């Protein structure tokens, strides 16, 4: 055993206490009734039509947001790669900087922007264009999700793209591939681990959020996150809340497995 390994022991203890055990606590609550007896009713409550509807809507919105993020982020990452900035951290900073404006306030600002008489509609009217009416609709929630999670799609893709040797791209051109062929056969497959990281980094928080739907959905639209949050803070039914959380964790585990599969070589260092 290497001596340096001991340096990680405080953290390993921490990890077991505050990462591993808490997950088991959720499992415990999820599979017990209020009286402490084993039950699967909590997990089965996902099949309640209301909960099922929320889960489905969450998946739907998360899917749409992830897709939009990918479509917006990939070209951006390509352009940033092409700019050959030698100051890599600068690009990361531009995307981290908004986080210094509180997450809730940032999202609330979209209310002001998207409101029926909000900034965007005022601008559209001034330009004699038709106004948009999206506030308190799923569309507004999607905008909020894309806005909040776009950096988590751009950064992993950008980080993979800048690691691709320019000569690898040159080699494809040299062997007769045009720009489109080079992209489809070389650049995209090589950047795939970054795309997978990005997809999970956007999909998981989008699917599980309750704040964005709360602030931009006008509290009428319930996502699965809202349902769980209310089980804890309103109905005080921790067992059902935990049971539903376990259902969420299935999706999370799936995405973690996906990352692990495509990210073997870089050992999870793709994110920043």
């Amino acid at each position: 055993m290497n001596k340096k390994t001991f340096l990680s022991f405080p953290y390993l203890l921490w990890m077991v206490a505050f990462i591993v055990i808490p997950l088991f606590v959720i499992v415990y609550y999820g599979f017990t009734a209020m009286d402490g007896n084993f039950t699967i009713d909590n997990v089965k409550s996902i099949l309640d039509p209301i909960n099922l509807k929320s889960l489905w809507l969450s998946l739907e919105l998360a899917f749409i947001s992830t897709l939009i993020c990918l479509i917006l982020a990939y070209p951006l990452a390509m352009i940033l790669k092409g700019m050959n900035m030698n100051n890599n951290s600068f690009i990361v900073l531009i995307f981290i900087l908004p986080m210094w404006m509180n997450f809730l306030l940032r999202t609330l600002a979209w209310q002001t922007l998207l409101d029926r008489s909000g900034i965007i509609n005022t601008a559209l009217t001034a330009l004699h264009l038709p106004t948009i009416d999206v506030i308190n609709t799923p569309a507004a929630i999607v905008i909020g999700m894309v806005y909040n999670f776009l950096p988590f799609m751009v950064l992993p893709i950008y980080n993979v793209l800048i690691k691709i040797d320019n000569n690898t791209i040159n080699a494809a051109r040299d062997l007769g591939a045009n720009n489109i062929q080079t992209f489809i056969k070389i650049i995209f497959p090589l950047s795939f681990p970054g795309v997978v990281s990005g997809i999970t980094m956007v999909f998981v928080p989008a699917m599980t959020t309750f704040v964005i739907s709360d602030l931009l959905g006008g509290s009428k639209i319930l996502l699965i996150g809202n349902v769980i949050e209310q089980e804890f803070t309103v109905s005080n039914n921790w067992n059902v809340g935990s049971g539903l959380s376990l259902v969420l964790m299935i999706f999370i585990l799936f995405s973690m497995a996906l990352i692990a599969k495509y990210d073997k070589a870089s050992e999870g260092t793709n994110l920043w």
Partner: protein
Amino acid sequence: MANDKLIDLVNIRKAYNNNVVLDDLNLYIKRNEFLTLLGPSGCGKTTTLRIIGGFENPDSGSVIFEGNNITKLPPNERQLNTVFQKYALFTHMTIAENIAFGLKIKKKSKSYIQDKIKYALKLVNLDCYENRTVDSLSGGQQQRIAIARAIVNEPKVLLLDEPLGALDLKLRQDMQYELIRLKNELGITFIYVTHDQEEALTMSDTIVVMNQGYIQQIGTPEDIYNEPKNAFVADFIGESNIIPSTMVEDKVVNILGTKFPCVDTGFGKNQPVDVVIRPEDIELVRPEDGIIKGQVTSLIFKGVHYEMGVMANGHEWLVHSTTLSPVGNEVGLKVDPYNIQIMNKPASEDEEAVIVNE
């Protein structure tokens, strides 16, 4: 003669942010020759290769390929292929997929591609490696695959950008013979970039010595080695004694106060020149038999020969000799007239700067 020119580079100029890399470069490459661009890093050799490959556009000048101007043609439409410095293999593909890449783009039939893969792998001595991954190969093997991937496309010219740079010495020497064999078997033109003079001398038909964006000398390996045109070439190719001297008259040169017979003529009388004498061309003799006398100041055993420093006429001469003479010994130095290479003093400031730098 004109037909012999496969590629013609005319007045090529290239600068990156005011930093001139190539200045009015003119060079032609003959069909089926093994041409090497040789020079220190930053001399413009790789840029020249990249301009031929189409990865860089020259600021001015043109690239003529078989009589057609291809200066603006993108790399995928050029009839040449490149072997890149660090191989640039596609890590997400198998070896077979790597080799098939160019052929699939050209929409060749499956059986044709299969045959070509087999043929190419045999050619680079890596039969049955089809389904291996890139990561499982050693550097030398990756290098061979990079070559195989290029040559299956039957290019008229193969560009090689320091392909052996990342390999260790033994492997590098083996690959040199391999490359010569390949070139002979394929019968195509090789343009090879390296900073390693030994590689250049071993493999090339023609060597182009470059420095600071200028061509210093073009010639066969023998020409370059035996008759370097200037001090830079002499110094860059092999070890040598470069001594400022005076040409007294035709066939007589005054080196450090002693008159040496030589074979060169036409330099005029009492003209300052540079003299190049290869260390293996200096004969160690008894003091009284030498043209000049000196004292041995250093001695290192190099295997094939001894490397000695001999102080004579206030200059330390580098001598390679198979006979040993201990440090402190009085010796005589003798040089055959045809082994003294006379060069004009550098004319341009660039060349001057080079000598200072080296």
